[in-house]
């Protein structure tokens, strides 16, 4: 009964944190537990070390989005790869992935980078339909690459439900690389195949050296940060500190592209993204705790185990559930609501929680662009002035390709687990 009311309220626009809070309070009440436990769980968003990275990375991403850096990136792309068939699309995909990995928000990528990339793709001779599809789906690339926020959040949630399993953020960062590259290269291959029939970009290409010099301040950052994290030289939090400081010093103090008085506004904007997510996370810590208390995951496992005879069947079922969830739920909502339920069941089926995490995030990444409520579809429609149905159609071939990549990721645990050495 309560579940039904909560679902209806959620669908008519009740903020998600309130939805989860009502669910959690109802759960604690039903278990005859002290409701103060809800507040106790919520306060833990101030105690989880890795969460310190969130505001820092997000601030860096939003600041970059407000600067001329995206324009410089597009120039560099044209200069460096304008000659290769589909080259612009390929490097564009890499830019999207970097941007989304750092901001943690594919919405920012659509708006800041997508709106620059779309005209460049059109000028290079791509059809509008293809370019729209590429920008919309491409902007969700990057969820699987460090230091993306969904990866960090999955690690946090997994550590809550399975603290003994040593699920480190660094393991997930490593695990995401190959599956992320697989998804990227599937789309890149498609772009090359489309482009082979097109005439080369008629516009003169900008010279490479000046374009490189233009971006000299920003270009080393991904190498320093990703190199630092992957080599173990920087802790995740330290990498976040370096990123935030670097971006602020180069854009505000050296380039002076962002006037100091604009800083509080931009910080508020970035922190609202973080605050909204952390408040939801805090509530979901409470709902997770009451589910553990009531041993809900064990009961689910006992209910489904007799009907499922193998790990792969279970994982396919998880894919179906997550794809459906991804269609109607926001990525963070899907993560905090479903991960605590699915992780313990998956562990009982012998699935590595890190592999499960990559499957989870690959699904939710696709969910960014699945109709009816993929956020990227709406943002693209809103931003580029195209009808939402046209955007749906434009993304379909890309979605088909991503689903194939998803099946490979599901079937082949080694792809995820080889780099973190968990095979």
């Amino acid at each position: 009964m309560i579940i039904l009311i909560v679902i209806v309220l959620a669908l008519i626009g009740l903020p998600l944190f309130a939805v989860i809070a009502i669910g959690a309070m109802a759960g604690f009440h039903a278990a005859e537990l002290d409701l103060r436990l809800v507040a106790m769980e919520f306060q833990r968003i101030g105690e989880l070390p890795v969460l310190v990275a969130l505001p820092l990375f997000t601030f860096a991403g939003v600041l970059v989005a407000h600067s001329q850096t995206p324009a410089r990136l597009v120039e560099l792309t044209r200069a460096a790869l304008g000659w290769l068939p589909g080259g612009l699309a390929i490097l564009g995909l890499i830019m999207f992935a970097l941007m989304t990995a750092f901001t943690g928000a594919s919405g920012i990528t659509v708006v800041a980078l997508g709106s620059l990339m779309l005209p460049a793709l059109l000028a290079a001779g791509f059809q509008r339909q293809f370019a729209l599809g590429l920008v919309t789906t491409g902007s969700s690339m990057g969820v699987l690459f460090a230091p993306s926020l969904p990866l960090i959040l999955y690690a946090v949630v997994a550590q809550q439900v399975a603290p003994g399993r040593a699920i480190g953020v660094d393991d997930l960062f490593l695990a995401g690389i190959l599956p992320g590259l697989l998804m990227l290269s599937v789309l890149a291959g498609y772009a090359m195949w489309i482009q082979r029939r097109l005439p080369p970009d008629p516009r003169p290409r900008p010279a490479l050296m000046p374009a490189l010099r233009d971006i000299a301040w920003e270009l080393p950052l991904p190498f320093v940060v990703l190199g630092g994290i992957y080599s173990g030289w920087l802790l995740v939090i330290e990498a976040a500190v370096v990123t935030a400081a670097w971006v602020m010093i180069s854009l505000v103090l050296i380039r002076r592209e962002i006037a100091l008085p604009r800083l509080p506004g931009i910080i508020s904007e970035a922190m609202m993204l973080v605050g909204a997510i952390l408040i939801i996370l805090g509530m979901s810590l409470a709902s997770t705790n009451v589910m553990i208390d009531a041993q809900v995951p064990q009961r689910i496992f006992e209910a489904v185990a007799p009907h499922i005879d193998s790990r792969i069947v279970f994982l396919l079922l998880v894919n179906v559930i997550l794809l459906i969830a991804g269609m109607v739920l926001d990525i963070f909502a899907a993560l905090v609501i479903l991960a605590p339920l699915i992780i313990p069941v998956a562990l009982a089926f012998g699935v590595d929680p890190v592999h499960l995490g990559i499957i989870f995030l690959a699904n939710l990444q696709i969910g960014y662009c699945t109709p009816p409520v993929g956020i990227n579809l709406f943002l693209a429609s809103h931003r580029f002035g195209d009808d939402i149905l046209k955007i749906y159609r434009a993304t379909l071939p890309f979605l088909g390709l991503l689903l194939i990549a998803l099946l490979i990721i599901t079937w082949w645990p080694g792809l995820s687990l080889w780099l973190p050495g968990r095979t």
Partner: protein
Amino acid sequence: ELRIATLAPDGSSWMNELREAERRIAAATEQRVRIRYYPGGVMGDASAVLRRMRLNQVQGGAFTVGDLAALTSAVNLYSLPFLFESEADVQAIRAEFDPLIMAALADAGMVIPGLSLGGFAYLFGRESFPSPEQLSTSWRVWVPAGDELSRRTLEAAGVSPVPLPLADVYTSLQTGAINTFASTPSAAIILQWHTRARHMLDLPILMTAGTIGIDSRALQRLAEADREIVLKEFGQALERLEQVNQRDNESARQALMEQGIRISAPSDEHAETWRRIARDTRQRMIESGQIEVPNLDRMIDVLNRLHEAE
């Protein structure tokens, strides 16, 4: 039903002994008392479990002696660095001082059936350990977050203490944020910290000890006879665990040596320097009221008499 949270994962020797106790309790009380465990830290760390006990979500938990300092300063007696010189020291004072600690905890609302020693913690590091005077701030030593006495003792020794939660120690060893840590031999292997060490200083630092703490209100709700069964079974489980720990530490010591870790004893003079630094720091902190250690004088008397007799 009693709900008990532990950090130890299912399948560990702690959980095995606790499950055994659960079976015996259920049988002896004819199913009147059921125990339900939340293993593997799903209910959070010790401070979270203490709060959950207060809010009656769980009625008990597995704790280290250090965790319980939040309830009563009496447990500090067993957490003082460089006080005990040997296992024999500890065993000699237990009969007198274990009951004092148990009584102080009971006054604070927590009943413990006994204490289970986990073995001495030793210093591990990348470099061989020189005399205490030669130590510098480049020795970045882990101390458990909140353990002020160890932190200040190390500070007085001239090294850099780095307070961290247990979960962060391994990564910090990897990044070099810390290069030295103290641990029992068996814990160093279980947590894989030993892969980051080349040397172990064979000088006992402090005796680790763990216990099962049960909320006294929850125990009061049980019938007198059932209560005694619960305490007796958990007490026996703790005793069995102490023996397991002892064996584990001995074999871990062997394993460490086989993996190339040099275990070297300090000279008597070095050992005495460490003890003097610890003693001075302890006295300073007690005099300035930064730490309370009830019954300390009495215990030191007992120890002195013991050492003179040798």
